[in-house]
Protein backbone atom coordinates (compact mmCIF):
# COMPACT_ATOMS: atom_id res chain seq x y z
CA UNK A 1 0.00 0.00 0.00
CA UNK A 2 1.10 3.55 -0.40
CA UNK A 3 2.94 5.34 2.35
CA UNK A 4 0.02 7.60 3.23
CA UNK A 5 -2.41 4.72 3.49
CA UNK A 6 0.15 2.73 5.42
CA UNK A 7 0.70 5.52 7.92
CA UNK A 8 -3.05 5.89 8.32
CA UNK A 9 -3.46 2.17 8.99
CA UNK A 10 -0.61 2.10 11.50
CA UNK A 11 -2.01 5.12 13.33
CA UNK A 12 -5.45 3.55 13.32
CA UNK A 13 -4.08 0.37 14.86
CA UNK A 14 -2.21 2.28 17.55
CA UNK A 15 -5.27 4.34 18.45
CA UNK A 16 -7.41 1.20 18.53
CA UNK A 17 -4.97 -0.54 20.88
CA UNK A 18 -4.84 2.38 23.29
CA UNK A 19 -8.60 2.80 23.17
CA UNK A 20 -9.12 -0.91 23.75
CA UNK A 21 -6.88 -1.04 26.78
CA UNK A 22 -8.60 1.98 28.30
CA UNK A 23 -12.00 0.49 27.49
CA UNK A 24 -11.05 -2.83 29.06
CA UNK A 25 -9.88 -1.21 32.27
CA UNK A 26 -13.04 0.86 32.44
CA UNK A 27 -15.28 -2.17 31.89
CA UNK A 28 -13.47 -4.26 34.51
CA UNK A 29 -13.58 -1.66 37.25
CA UNK A 30 -17.13 -0.65 36.36
CA UNK A 31 -18.35 -4.24 36.70
CA UNK A 32 -16.34 -5.38 39.71
CA UNK A 33 -16.74 -2.33 41.94
Amino acid at each position, binding site marked *: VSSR*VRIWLIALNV*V*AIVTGIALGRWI*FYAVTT
Partner: protein
Amino acid sequence: MVGRRRPHPTHAGAVIEAPSVGCYARPVISEEVSAPHLARRSVGIFVGLSVVCACLTVLFLSMRAVMKIGGYCASGGPYEIAVECPNGVPGLMIGSIWIGLGALLLYSMSSYSSGGPRLAILAWPVLFLSLGWNFLEFGLDPGNDQGIVWSWIICAILFFLMGGGPLLLLVRPESVARILWGPPGPDGEPPARAPSWAFASGTTVVDQTTEASGITHATIVVDPGPADDGESTDATDAANEGDVQTDEPDEDLVDRLERLSTLHRRGSLSDAEFTAAKQALLSGGAT
Protein backbone atom coordinates in the same frame (compact mmCIF):
# COMPACT_ATOMS: atom_id res chain seq x y z
CA MET B 1 13.07 3.11 -29.27
CA VAL B 2 11.35 4.99 -26.57
CA GLY B 3 7.71 5.70 -27.16
CA ARG B 4 5.55 8.35 -25.64
CA ARG B 5 3.19 7.39 -22.89
CA ARG B 6 -0.20 8.96 -23.41
CA PRO B 7 -2.61 9.00 -20.50
CA HIS B 8 -6.03 7.64 -21.15
CA PRO B 9 -8.67 10.39 -21.00
CA THR B 10 -10.81 8.56 -18.47
CA HIS B 11 -8.22 6.66 -16.48
CA ALA B 12 -5.22 8.91 -16.53
CA GLY B 13 -3.04 8.76 -13.49
CA ALA B 14 -4.40 5.57 -11.98
CA VAL B 15 -1.42 4.37 -10.05
CA ILE B 16 -0.90 0.88 -8.82
CA GLU B 17 1.92 -0.03 -6.54
CA ALA B 18 3.27 -3.52 -6.36
CA PRO B 19 4.91 -3.86 -2.97
CA SER B 20 7.01 -6.90 -2.58
CA VAL B 21 9.32 -8.52 -0.14
CA GLY B 22 12.30 -10.31 -1.48
CA CYS B 23 11.84 -10.84 -5.16
CA TYR B 24 8.10 -11.19 -5.61
CA ALA B 25 5.61 -8.54 -6.46
CA ARG B 26 1.88 -8.33 -6.01
CA PRO B 27 -0.30 -5.51 -7.26
CA VAL B 28 -2.08 -3.44 -4.67
CA ILE B 29 -3.97 -0.28 -5.40
CA SER B 30 -2.55 2.44 -3.23
CA GLU B 31 -3.98 5.87 -2.62
CA GLU B 32 -6.55 5.43 -5.33
CA VAL B 33 -8.42 2.92 -3.20
CA SER B 34 -11.96 4.12 -3.04
CA ALA B 35 -12.71 6.13 0.04
CA PRO B 36 -15.80 4.12 1.05
CA HIS B 37 -13.81 0.91 0.89
CA LEU B 38 -11.03 2.27 3.05
CA ALA B 39 -13.55 3.80 5.45
CA ARG B 40 -15.35 0.48 5.89
CA ARG B 41 -12.12 -1.36 6.51
CA SER B 42 -10.96 1.32 8.91
CA VAL B 43 -14.13 0.99 10.97
CA GLY B 44 -13.68 -2.77 11.06
CA ILE B 45 -10.04 -2.44 12.08
CA PHE B 46 -10.77 0.08 14.81
CA VAL B 47 -13.78 -1.71 16.28
CA GLY B 48 -12.24 -5.16 15.99
CA LEU B 49 -8.84 -4.31 17.40
CA SER B 50 -10.13 -2.09 20.20
CA VAL B 51 -12.56 -4.79 21.34
CA VAL B 52 -9.83 -7.43 21.15
CA CYS B 53 -7.57 -5.27 23.32
CA ALA B 54 -10.41 -4.55 25.71
CA CYS B 55 -11.13 -8.26 26.08
CA LEU B 56 -7.47 -9.08 26.63
CA THR B 57 -7.29 -6.37 29.28
CA VAL B 58 -10.43 -7.63 31.00
CA LEU B 59 -9.10 -11.17 30.97
CA PHE B 60 -5.76 -10.05 32.36
CA LEU B 61 -7.36 -8.07 35.18
CA SER B 62 -9.91 -10.77 35.93
CA MET B 63 -7.19 -13.36 36.32
CA ARG B 64 -5.33 -11.10 38.72
CA ALA B 65 -8.50 -10.65 40.74
CA VAL B 66 -8.86 -14.40 41.09
CA MET B 67 -5.21 -14.95 41.94
CA LYS B 68 -5.38 -12.33 44.66
CA ILE B 69 -7.85 -14.52 46.53
CA GLY B 70 -5.80 -17.68 46.18
CA GLY B 71 -6.09 -18.64 42.55
CA TYR B 72 -9.46 -20.36 42.57
CA CYS B 73 -13.05 -19.40 43.25
CA ALA B 74 -16.60 -20.39 42.45
CA SER B 75 -19.86 -18.65 41.89
CA GLY B 76 -23.45 -19.84 41.73
CA GLY B 77 -24.68 -23.40 41.70
CA PRO B 78 -26.26 -25.55 44.45
CA TYR B 79 -23.04 -26.24 46.35
CA GLU B 80 -21.52 -24.49 49.31
CA ILE B 81 -18.78 -22.25 47.98
CA ALA B 82 -15.51 -22.03 49.87
CA VAL B 83 -14.17 -19.00 48.02
CA GLU B 84 -16.66 -16.75 46.30
CA CYS B 85 -15.50 -15.15 43.07
CA PRO B 86 -15.18 -11.38 42.94
CA ASN B 87 -18.30 -9.65 41.76
CA GLY B 88 -18.76 -10.02 37.99
CA VAL B 89 -15.45 -11.74 37.34
CA PRO B 90 -16.83 -15.11 36.07
CA GLY B 91 -19.00 -13.35 33.53
CA LEU B 92 -16.19 -11.06 32.49
CA MET B 93 -13.78 -13.94 31.93
CA ILE B 94 -16.20 -16.01 29.86
CA GLY B 95 -17.52 -13.01 27.97
CA SER B 96 -14.12 -11.60 27.19
CA ILE B 97 -12.99 -14.88 25.63
CA TRP B 98 -15.90 -15.27 23.25
CA ILE B 99 -16.36 -11.59 22.43
CA GLY B 100 -12.63 -11.32 21.92
CA LEU B 101 -12.63 -14.20 19.45
CA GLY B 102 -15.45 -12.58 17.47
CA ALA B 103 -13.69 -9.24 17.45
CA LEU B 104 -10.46 -10.92 16.39
CA LEU B 105 -12.28 -12.40 13.41
CA LEU B 106 -13.64 -8.98 12.46
CA TYR B 107 -10.22 -7.39 12.80
CA SER B 108 -8.55 -10.13 10.79
CA MET B 109 -10.99 -9.79 7.92
CA SER B 110 -10.68 -6.02 7.87
CA SER B 111 -6.92 -5.84 8.20
CA TYR B 112 -6.25 -8.56 5.62
CA SER B 113 -8.47 -6.98 2.99
CA SER B 114 -7.11 -3.49 3.58
CA GLY B 115 -3.48 -4.50 3.27
CA GLY B 116 -2.79 -2.97 6.64
CA PRO B 117 -0.65 -4.32 9.44
CA ARG B 118 -1.96 -7.70 10.45
CA LEU B 119 -1.58 -7.72 14.19
CA ALA B 120 -3.99 -10.59 14.73
CA ILE B 121 -1.11 -13.02 14.95
CA LEU B 122 0.13 -11.11 17.99
CA ALA B 123 -3.05 -11.86 19.93
CA TRP B 124 -1.73 -15.29 20.88
CA PRO B 125 1.60 -14.05 22.29
CA VAL B 126 -0.08 -11.14 24.05
CA LEU B 127 -2.62 -13.45 25.67
CA PHE B 128 -0.16 -16.03 26.94
CA LEU B 129 2.61 -13.64 27.88
CA SER B 130 0.25 -11.42 29.86
CA LEU B 131 -1.32 -14.34 31.69
CA GLY B 132 2.11 -15.87 32.17
CA TRP B 133 3.21 -12.63 33.78
CA ASN B 134 0.35 -12.98 36.27
CA PHE B 135 1.50 -16.50 37.11
CA LEU B 136 5.07 -15.31 37.56
CA GLU B 137 4.21 -12.28 39.67
CA PHE B 138 1.83 -14.07 41.99
CA GLY B 139 3.98 -17.20 41.98
CA LEU B 140 6.92 -15.24 43.37
CA ASP B 141 4.79 -13.26 45.80
CA PRO B 142 1.31 -14.68 46.39
CA GLY B 143 0.72 -12.08 49.08
CA ASN B 144 -0.11 -14.35 52.01
CA ASP B 145 3.38 -15.18 53.26
CA GLN B 146 3.31 -18.57 51.56
CA GLY B 147 6.61 -18.05 49.84
CA ILE B 148 7.13 -19.04 46.27
CA VAL B 149 4.32 -21.03 44.70
CA TRP B 150 6.20 -23.34 42.37
CA SER B 151 3.12 -24.62 40.59
CA TRP B 152 2.42 -21.11 39.41
CA ILE B 153 6.04 -20.64 38.40
CA ILE B 154 5.78 -23.74 36.25
CA CYS B 155 2.59 -22.37 34.72
CA ALA B 156 4.41 -19.10 34.04
CA ILE B 157 7.21 -20.91 32.24
CA LEU B 158 4.75 -22.88 30.13
CA PHE B 159 2.80 -19.76 29.25
CA PHE B 160 5.96 -17.86 28.35
CA LEU B 161 7.02 -20.69 26.08
CA MET B 162 3.61 -20.82 24.41
CA GLY B 163 3.42 -17.07 24.00
CA GLY B 164 7.02 -16.50 23.05
CA GLY B 165 7.21 -19.24 20.44
CA PRO B 166 5.42 -17.34 17.69
CA LEU B 167 7.54 -14.27 18.40
CA LEU B 168 10.56 -16.19 17.15
CA LEU B 169 8.99 -15.86 13.71
CA LEU B 170 9.43 -12.11 14.00
CA VAL B 171 13.17 -12.17 14.57
CA ARG B 172 14.07 -11.54 10.94
CA PRO B 173 12.96 -8.21 9.43
CA GLU B 174 11.82 -9.96 6.27
CA SER B 175 9.58 -12.17 8.33
CA VAL B 176 8.12 -9.15 10.09
CA ALA B 177 7.22 -7.59 6.76
CA ARG B 178 5.80 -10.84 5.48
CA ILE B 179 3.70 -11.50 8.56
CA LEU B 180 2.49 -7.99 9.26
CA TRP B 181 2.02 -6.78 5.70
CA GLY B 182 1.07 -9.98 3.97
CA PRO B 183 2.64 -12.59 1.77
CA PRO B 184 4.83 -11.43 -1.08
CA GLY B 185 2.63 -12.69 -3.85
CA PRO B 186 0.71 -15.53 -5.38
CA ASP B 187 2.38 -18.88 -5.34
CA GLY B 188 4.68 -19.44 -8.22
CA GLU B 189 4.66 -15.87 -9.40
CA PRO B 190 7.93 -14.94 -11.05
CA PRO B 191 10.10 -12.44 -9.22
CA ALA B 192 9.88 -8.67 -9.27
CA ARG B 193 7.51 -8.06 -12.06
CA ALA B 194 4.17 -6.47 -12.56
CA PRO B 195 0.99 -8.52 -12.86
CA SER B 196 0.45 -10.16 -16.18
CA TRP B 197 -2.59 -8.09 -17.03
CA ALA B 198 -0.57 -4.94 -16.60
CA PHE B 199 1.25 -5.67 -19.81
CA ALA B 200 -1.78 -6.56 -21.83
CA SER B 201 -2.05 -3.20 -23.51
CA GLY B 202 -0.71 0.22 -22.88
CA THR B 203 0.21 -0.39 -19.26
CA THR B 204 3.63 0.81 -18.39
CA VAL B 205 6.13 0.23 -15.67
CA VAL B 206 7.49 3.66 -15.00
CA ASP B 207 9.51 3.25 -11.86
CA GLN B 208 10.94 0.66 -9.60
CA THR B 209 12.71 1.55 -6.39
CA THR B 210 14.02 -0.31 -3.43
CA GLU B 211 13.57 1.26 -0.05
CA ALA B 212 15.89 0.86 2.88
CA SER B 213 13.36 -1.44 4.47
CA GLY B 214 13.91 -3.95 1.73
CA ILE B 215 10.42 -3.50 0.32
CA THR B 216 10.34 -3.05 -3.40
CA HIS B 217 7.75 -0.88 -5.06
CA ALA B 218 7.09 -1.30 -8.73
CA THR B 219 4.91 1.61 -9.71
CA ILE B 220 2.62 0.94 -12.60
CA VAL B 221 0.57 3.44 -14.51
CA VAL B 222 -2.55 2.04 -16.08
CA ASP B 223 -2.72 3.57 -19.50
CA PRO B 224 -5.10 1.45 -21.50
CA GLY B 225 -5.62 3.88 -24.34
CA PRO B 226 -3.50 3.34 -27.44
CA ALA B 227 -1.48 6.24 -28.72
CA ASP B 228 -3.49 8.23 -31.17
CA ASP B 229 -0.55 9.15 -33.31
CA GLY B 230 0.43 5.59 -33.85
CA GLU B 231 3.52 5.75 -31.70
CA SER B 232 4.21 2.74 -29.60
CA THR B 233 3.80 2.89 -25.85
CA ASP B 234 6.50 2.42 -23.28
CA ALA B 235 5.23 -1.03 -22.48
CA THR B 236 5.45 -2.09 -26.07
CA ASP B 237 8.89 -0.64 -26.43
CA ALA B 238 10.08 -2.12 -23.21
CA ALA B 239 8.70 -5.51 -24.11
CA ASN B 240 10.37 -5.32 -27.50
CA GLU B 241 13.65 -4.33 -25.95
CA GLY B 242 13.41 -6.93 -23.24
CA ASP B 243 13.41 -4.34 -20.47
CA VAL B 244 10.37 -5.85 -18.86
CA GLN B 245 9.49 -9.42 -18.37
CA THR B 246 6.23 -10.19 -20.05
CA ASP B 247 3.83 -12.91 -19.07
CA GLU B 248 4.24 -16.51 -20.08
CA PRO B 249 2.85 -16.88 -23.58
CA ASP B 250 0.79 -19.90 -22.68
CA GLU B 251 -0.97 -18.28 -19.76
CA ASP B 252 -4.64 -18.36 -20.29
CA LEU B 253 -6.56 -15.16 -20.73
CA VAL B 254 -9.21 -16.52 -18.43
CA ASP B 255 -6.71 -16.83 -15.60
CA ARG B 256 -5.75 -13.22 -16.00
CA LEU B 257 -9.37 -12.14 -15.99
CA GLU B 258 -10.02 -14.21 -12.88
CA ARG B 259 -7.11 -12.62 -11.09
CA LEU B 260 -8.33 -9.21 -12.11
CA SER B 261 -11.81 -10.05 -10.91
CA THR B 262 -10.41 -11.27 -7.61
CA LEU B 263 -8.63 -7.96 -7.06
CA HIS B 264 -11.86 -6.15 -7.88
CA ARG B 265 -13.90 -8.23 -5.46
CA ARG B 266 -11.33 -7.68 -2.74
CA GLY B 267 -11.67 -3.99 -3.23
CA SER B 268 -8.13 -3.47 -4.38
CA LEU B 269 -9.47 -2.16 -7.67
CA SER B 270 -12.25 0.35 -8.00
CA ASP B 271 -14.93 -0.13 -10.63
CA ALA B 272 -13.27 2.33 -12.97
CA GLU B 273 -9.85 0.78 -12.53
CA PHE B 274 -11.25 -2.68 -12.99
CA THR B 275 -13.00 -1.68 -16.18
CA ALA B 276 -9.89 0.00 -17.55
CA ALA B 277 -7.64 -2.93 -16.72
CA LYS B 278 -10.15 -5.40 -18.12
CA GLN B 279 -10.42 -3.49 -21.36
CA ALA B 280 -6.66 -3.31 -21.56
CA LEU B 281 -6.39 -7.02 -20.95
CA LEU B 282 -9.03 -7.93 -23.47
CA SER B 283 -7.60 -5.72 -26.14
CA GLY B 284 -4.16 -7.17 -25.59
CA GLY B 285 -5.27 -10.73 -25.04
CA ALA B 286 -7.47 -10.84 -28.10
CA THR B 287 -4.53 -10.56 -30.39
